């Protein structure tokens, strides 16, 4: 038990190869057990150093450098550059295609929707100017109207008024005509937003008949025959 306190110092001394401190040296000179421990440790450390030296200083195989140089030559820069270029082109192409696929339907929808909106607005304005029936102007794109029309439960809500489609060649003429009418005055342009037309029951006021004259149909028929003869 007394020797255990020297154990750490003995191992450190064996590991570093340094000389023992005097008080430990004195003990080791007297203690056979500690001498054995120190000697065993020194043998192990020496063996460790030999093993490390042996592992770390192996001779390079003679074929190593020639093989490596031939592999380096095989690493042709043109092939590698070609591969890089192709990879870049493929990646860029895929990216552009993906962006086009994502962006195209929206743009188309916006363009078509915007064009039809403009046309309907013009048509509505012209129709109002000409005192035609009120026309429903849809601010939403066409596809929304279509989707609503396809839903039977929304039939009561949707507008059944026909839209006025004006051919392009007639648009200018109608605009000119409308401008002339406005100059003359008396035309009120009602610009309204989306109108939801509710379905209502048709109400007819009571019909009042003041004079009622009943004639025989046979007499009338006889008169007509004589006239034709």
């Amino acid at each position, binding site marked *: 038990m007394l020797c255990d306190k020297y154990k750490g110092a003995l191992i450190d001394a064996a590991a570093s190869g340094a000389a023992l401190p005097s008080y430990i040296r004195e003990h080791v000179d007297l203690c056979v057990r500690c001498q054995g421990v120190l000697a065993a440790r020194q043998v192990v450390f020496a063996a*460790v150093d030999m093993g490390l030296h042996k592992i770390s200083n192996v001779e*390079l195989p003679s074929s190593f450098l020639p093989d490596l140089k031939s592999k380096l030559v095989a690493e042709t820069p043109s092939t590698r550059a070609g591969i890089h270029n192709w990879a870049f082109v493929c990646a860029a192409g895929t990216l552009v295609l993906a962006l086009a696929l994502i962006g195209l339907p929206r743009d188309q929808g916006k363009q078509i929707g915007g064009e039809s909106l403009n046309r309907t607005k013009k048509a509505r304005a012209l129709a109002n100017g000409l005192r035609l029936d009120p026309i429903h102007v849809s601010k939403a794109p066409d596809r929304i109207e279509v989707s609503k029309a396809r839903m039977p439960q929304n039939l009561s809500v949707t507008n059944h008024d026909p839209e006025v489609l004006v051919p392009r060649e007639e648009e200018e003429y109608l605009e000119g005509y409308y401008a002339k009418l406005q100059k003359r005055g008396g035309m009120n342009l009602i610009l309204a937003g989306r109108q939801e037309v509710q379905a209502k029951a048709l109400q007819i006021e009571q019909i009042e008949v003041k004079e009622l004259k009943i004639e025989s149909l046979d007499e009338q028929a006889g008169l007509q025959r004589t006239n034709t003869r």
Partner: protein
Amino acid sequence: MQELVLIQPIRAADEEWTREAAYAARRREFEARLAECGPLAYRVARGVLRNDADAEDVAQEALLRAYRRFDRLRDPLRFRGWLVRIVFRLALDRARSARRRELRETEWAQPARRATPLNAEELAASSEFQAHFGRALEELPEKLRLVLLLAAMEGHTLEEVAAMLGLPVGTVKSRLFVGRKKLAEKLQCYVTNTKAR
């Protein structure tokens, strides 16, 4: 337009030639380092793998990788440390996969029992000790292992190892001390057990 058609191939050839020349220069520069760094790469790989064929394979793979990324290296003075790290990583990966394969396919062969050697030379020369030494080295933490291998190589001072790994000399010293101590502890058990038989 015609002029363009006539000039373009020459320009392309010029560019191609310049590129080829740059690659050739780079290859020459790299090959100049091979004489010095080839053995270093092989020894690091061999120290981890303890197998000549695997070490050669891994060292060549590491050098090829280094060559491919050679132009990305900003400081050429750090080439050795950079290469050592590549080799060490590749060798560790190979060692792990080899260990898995060995465990799957075969059982560990028990080393033959012989009489206990008396001195350090006999101990280090025995195949049983070498097998134990290899396993003990594998069990060491990577940072300790790399320092032990590099410091044990001929011609490497502690300062050089420190510069190679980008570490302070004091850190290298302490890692070396701790690494040797741990190795000795593991092998001490083996020595004690064999003596007790």
